């Protein structure tokens, strides 16, 4: 069906039914997408976006894991109120703080990274706190019976048991990081894939704009399927063990 749509788009474009300045044509976009790969500026944009996501995601995950792990050992009432509060905070669109942070930090990587970290922090904290606290006591007893040291217990028992429980939070965090990074780059930035789309639009470089959009979508879909595949594998492991 997707192929059919692309074919129809191409035919309509060639027949002149669609304005070339608005719609371009798949064959032209394909060529342009191929050309972009060899362009250093485009590679820089890709690099910049990946770095934004990577920095923000790692800070968010580190902070979330720390806070989540701390609260997973807290009494149920305290953990419950933290989780309830975080679930409510999740509704806040942090991205609206972007212009404010821009005025503070200027047009650097900082505003994007901080907001991405914040956006990632919440689902990671939630899943770590819930995941770690729902590891059954059997495992705890097992680690005692096996006379494991604290380090061994964490590495050999807690981590493997926690990964399948925590992974959905990481996954959600990653997709949010990707979406918000591209979104912020798109609004105001000096480089990055989102910026390239906006820039091409302003410069009427329609083919380039479509080509970058195609690359972004392809990247997002590939990453998403990869994460789905990993999640499926983890779930299988969790069932068999």
């Amino acid at each position: 069906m997707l192929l059919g749509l692309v074919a129809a788009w191409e035919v309509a474009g060639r027949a002149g039914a669609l304005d070339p300045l608005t719609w371009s044509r798949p064959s032209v976009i394909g060529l342009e997408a191929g050309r972009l790969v060899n362009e250093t500026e485009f590679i820089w944009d890709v690099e910049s976006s990946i770095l934004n996501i990577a920095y923000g995601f790692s800070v968010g995950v580190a902070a979330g894991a720390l806070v989540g792990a701390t609260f997973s050992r807290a009494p149920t009432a305290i953990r419950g109120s933290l989780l309830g509060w975080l679930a409510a905070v999740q509704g806040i669109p942090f991205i609206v703080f972007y212009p404010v942070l821009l005025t503070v930090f200027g047009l650097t990587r900082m505003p994007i990274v901080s907001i991405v970290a914040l956006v990632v922090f919440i689902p990671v904290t939630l899943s770590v706190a819930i995941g770690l606290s729902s590891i059954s006591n059997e495992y705890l007893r097992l680690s005692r019976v096996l006379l494991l040291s604290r380090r061994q217990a964490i590495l050999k028992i807690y981590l493997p048991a926690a990964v399948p429980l925590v992974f959905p939070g990481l996954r959600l965090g990653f997709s949010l990081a990707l979406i918000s990074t591209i979104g912020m780059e798109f609004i105001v930035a000096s480089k990055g894939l989102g910026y390239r789309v906006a820039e091409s639009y302003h410069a009427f470089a329609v083919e380039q704009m479509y080509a970058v959009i195609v690359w972004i979508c392809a990247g997002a879909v590939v990453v998403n399927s990869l994460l789905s595949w990993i999640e499926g594998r983890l779930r299988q492991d969790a069932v068999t063990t």
Partner: protein
Amino acid sequence: MSLSVSLSRRVPWQGPLLGTGVAIAALLLWLLVSSLTPYIASPGSTLSAIAEGVRSGFLTSAARASLSATLAGFALASAVSLGLSYMLAANSFLGKVFTPVLHSYGSLPHIIFLPILLMVFGTGTSSKVAMAALVAVFPMTVNMIGGLAAVPRTWLKMGRVSGGSRLRVIAKVHVRGALPSMLVGLRLGFGSAFLAVVISEFFGSDSGLGVAMAAAYGSLDYAKLSAVVVMTLLISLLGNSVIRLVERRLDT
């Protein structure tokens, strides 16, 4: 969500108390940060900028423009997701084929489609509405499918046995059974639609909160910027809690 509800039932004062505590802490933090940097307006000057914005009408008219675009996009997305989710839930073949497609679609940063919409619809309201609908369709459809899948089979049989036509079964059984999950979808859909509208406006439009935000940012008017940001937050939190109230009412 259900977690916080059960908690507040057990210890009725704890939820609000913690909420107020956190709000006060956030306010103090805001005060502290605003006294450190000239770029962040203090709570006081933000408040007076909001009052000024309401008096002169620029803030209210911007909010009105954003909200009406959000509602239009939201309505469009609801209609599309209702049909789509029924199709995918009712037909297992279509469901199997298109659920991965739907999830891939959900993982895209939709905002990059905005320039295409701007070229097609122009910079008026319709491009914002289309953007809001594109973004909101995903959470709404996913939750509606989840809700429809959770409708007990016996209810459906019951509906058929009591001689309901296909349409009446859909209206009375499917919709009622899927309602709790649907409301979650509507809440997430509203939030994302509103955000999509504001971001689209920031990028380029003729009116709305995003336009006001971009203008304040461009003219380095920090109090005004802060006022628009706070207004945007308030509206999205308000919409969120209104739908959440309906959810809770339905739960009990």
